[in-house]
């Protein structure tokens, strides 16, 4: 939207309307027995719990000055259980049903943009969460009157819980958007249920810690606000990441799906780097930098798999947006759809992360991170790129008629096979032992972390380097063709009357 568009949007504020998805989903939500039934059950449980607490208290001779705190703890467990477990499940199941692989709901072929659809789904889940929270609020506020918990703690815990529920909802929407068959989605549901137990446990633990310390007392400290801001930022960034991923998943394949995801990841990578560096500067401890380095490494490994699953063919509509200027085109190559550009983007991020982290670790002597961290970073990255380029080569040479996502699968299978097959062989030769697992296994990415001997480490690095160089040579022609073909098409696009 250009400046005039933004101006006209605000001038015509009377024409603003709620997201259609929110209206439809909420209408359906409040009428559905699933939501209303769950809400009623939730209220009944809250009511019975408070009744139970008050009745047991009435038998006590001495007044319980912690009754409010105990009741609040029980309410937190109930609310966390209901909202972390039920709302993401409800949201995910609904979206998954609509995104059925062979028969998606017709709302996905309306003129609603994928961003509006996902935002609508997310907003609706947030409203339902708000419904549960507001139902619980009077009970929780009441605990303050019974002593044992201060109001800031009540609101602070509720706020954090809400943030977690929203992030969980966004993850559920993302999982539901994945183009998978029903059995796979069912497996994800089971996995999600187990994970939600872990999340509920951690949330309750954090809430109890906050209650013991009392948020009201901590609010004056600077560290409290830094910690809060960091936690909120991580939650928002995580929800944002799954939001852009979900949007990319429901966007037509002909669109520039990679652009927004890569821009977003680059932005949070930059932001994370700056914040971590600020943290290092403040504490003087270079270890803090690893809070940026390790997550970047993990995210980029996932991004590498997704990148090599990209098609080489760039659609006409994406081609039409390729900049004419050479400099802009170079930048666009790394951010637009396509495996070749994606490899460049991942390589740039990983190389910059490694170099910056190393520079900072060397500049600040107060660090417990030893040189082996740098070794495994480089070796595993080299192995990951070798696997990926090998998979791309195999796909291109032997299975080019099959979908490009096979390349990503090959890379995983290659890494897995290289790690497991030698051990299986040793098992059948009756020579499998811990020593053999920890011994040098060239080509096995996981073995990099097990090897302790300096010489063996160098052998790993050398092997990965030679393999990577070979794969780079084998893929060079393909890569250069991709660079050469990355140009805007001649002629104007057709216009719909």
């Amino acid at each position: 939207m250009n400046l005039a568009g933004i101006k006209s949007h605000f001038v015509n504020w009377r024409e603003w309307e709620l997201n259609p998805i929110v209206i439809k989903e909420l209408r359906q939500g409040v009428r559905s027995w699933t939501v209303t039934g769950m809400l009623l059950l939730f209220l009944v449980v809250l009511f019975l719990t408070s009744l139970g607490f008050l009745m047991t208290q009435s038998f006590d001779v001495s007044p319980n000055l912690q009754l409010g705190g105990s009741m609040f703890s029980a309410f937190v467990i109930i609310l966390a259980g209901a909202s972390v477990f039920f709302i993401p499940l409800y949201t995910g199941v609904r979206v998954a049903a609509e995104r059925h692989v062979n028969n998606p709901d017709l709302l996905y072929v309306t003129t609603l943009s994928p961003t509006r659809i996902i935002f609508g789904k997310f907003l609706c889940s947030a409203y339902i969460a708000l419904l549960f929270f507001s139902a619980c609020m009077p009970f929780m506020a009441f605990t303050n009157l019974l002593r044992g918990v201060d109001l800031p703690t009540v609101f602070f815990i509720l706020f954090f819980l809400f943030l977690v529920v929203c992030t969980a909802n966004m993850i559920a929407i993302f999982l539901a958007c994945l183009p998978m068959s029903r059995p796979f989605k069912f497996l994800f549901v089971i996995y999600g249920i187990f994970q939600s137990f872990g999340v509920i446990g951690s949330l309750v633990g954090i809430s109890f810690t906050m209650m013991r310390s009392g948020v009201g007392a901590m609010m004056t400290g600077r560290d409290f606000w830094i910690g809060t801001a960091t936690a909120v930022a991580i939650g928002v960034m995580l929800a944002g990441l799954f939001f852009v991923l979900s949007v990319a998943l429901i966007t037509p394949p002909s669109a520039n799906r990679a652009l927004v995801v890569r821009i977003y990841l680059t932005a949070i990578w930059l932001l994370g780097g700056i914040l971590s560096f600020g943290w290092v500067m403040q504490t003087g401890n270079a270890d803090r930098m690893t809070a940026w380095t390790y997550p970047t490494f993990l995210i980029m490994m996932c991004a590498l798999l997704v990148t090599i699953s990209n098609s080489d063919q760039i659609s006409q509509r994406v081609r039409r947006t390729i900049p004419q200027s050479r400099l802009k085109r170079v930048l666009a190559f790394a951010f637009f759809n396509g495996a070749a550009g994606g490899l460049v983007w991942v390589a740039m991020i990983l190389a910059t992360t490694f170099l910056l982290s190393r520079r900072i670790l060397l500049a600040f002597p107060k660090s417990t991170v030893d040189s082996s961290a740098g070794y495994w970073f480089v070796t595993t990255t080299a192995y990951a790129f070798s696997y990926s380029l090998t998979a791309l080569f195999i796909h291109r040479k032997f299975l080019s008629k099959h979908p490009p996502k096979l390349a990503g699968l090959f890379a995983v299978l290659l890494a897995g096979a290289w790690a497991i097959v030698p051990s299986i062989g040793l098992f059948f030769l009756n020579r499998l032992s811990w020593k053999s697992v920890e011994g040098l296994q060239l080509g096995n990415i996981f073995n990099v972390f097990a090897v302790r001997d300096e010489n063996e480490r160098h052998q790993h690095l050398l092997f990965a380097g030679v393999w990577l160089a070979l794969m780079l040579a084998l893929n060079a022609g393909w890569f250069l063709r991709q660079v050469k073909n990355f140009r805007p098409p001649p002629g104007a696009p057709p216009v719909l009357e």
Partner: protein
Amino acid sequence: MKIEVKNLRKEFGKTVAVDNISFSFDSGHIFGFVGPNGAGKTTTMRIISTIEEPTAGDVLLNGISVCEEPELARRAVGYVPDTLPAHADITIHEYLDFYARAYGLRGKKRTQAVEAIEEFTNVTGIRDKHLKALSKGMKQRVSLGRALVYDPDVLVLDEPAAGLDPRARVELRELLMLLAARKKAILISSHILTELTEICNGVVIIESGKILETGTIAEVLKKSAPRRTVAIRLLEGNHHQNPQLLKELLQTPFIENAREVVNEIHFDLTGDEAAACGILGELIAKKFKIIEFRQTKANLEDIFMNVTKGGVQ
């Protein structure tokens, strides 16, 4: 608006649902899409409506590719599936209102559009009924209403008459002709071929993902059914002349397969209309008391039976 289906191919694993088909149709035309079950009709229609993506080929709406620019194409296409997706806990009015919003209609314009469509599809009286509680025929009406609410230029209807009662079918037929008169391009698939003959300008006959016949109805009829069947009925009380008439006809040129059907004589005429006229004159001159001499036109059903083999994938 010109709709061009170009070398469309769709594979589901090893199954080729649509095998390199091409055809085109324009605004103001109703194009019939005919084929046995599993022929690839629904897949083709879903590709045109941007629900599926083709393995190869493309569909162009005035040059806009449904593969490259599905978001643009969606503004122009209204799709009526063979069954209305089951939406729980939503009324007809809310459903139509949602789709009007989803297609960007706002404020009064939206209210008017939804009300007009409710009236057009005759659901005004039951607009607050839940979708799940509707009969199949009513669901078809709502589905059509959903597709029409944003006034698309192209309508793709997959078996819209299935499950409709005779009155609703007649209404649907009239509705489609009205829409064609409003310059909509309509692609309709149906197993009720006699109805398609009456309303379609053109037809595509498809089987096992391949096009068997395509063109205007007249062209296809001429190509696939070159013979015409003629029926003769004699005046009541003169049926004793039937064997004599039958004998006479069998000796006449251009006539094949003469047979008695109930109280009538039917035969296949290989000649043109002038030949038919000559035969009638001769029979009257030979004192046959003819009360009815009619040509029974070959319809889509005959052609369908002639050209298809009932193959499915």
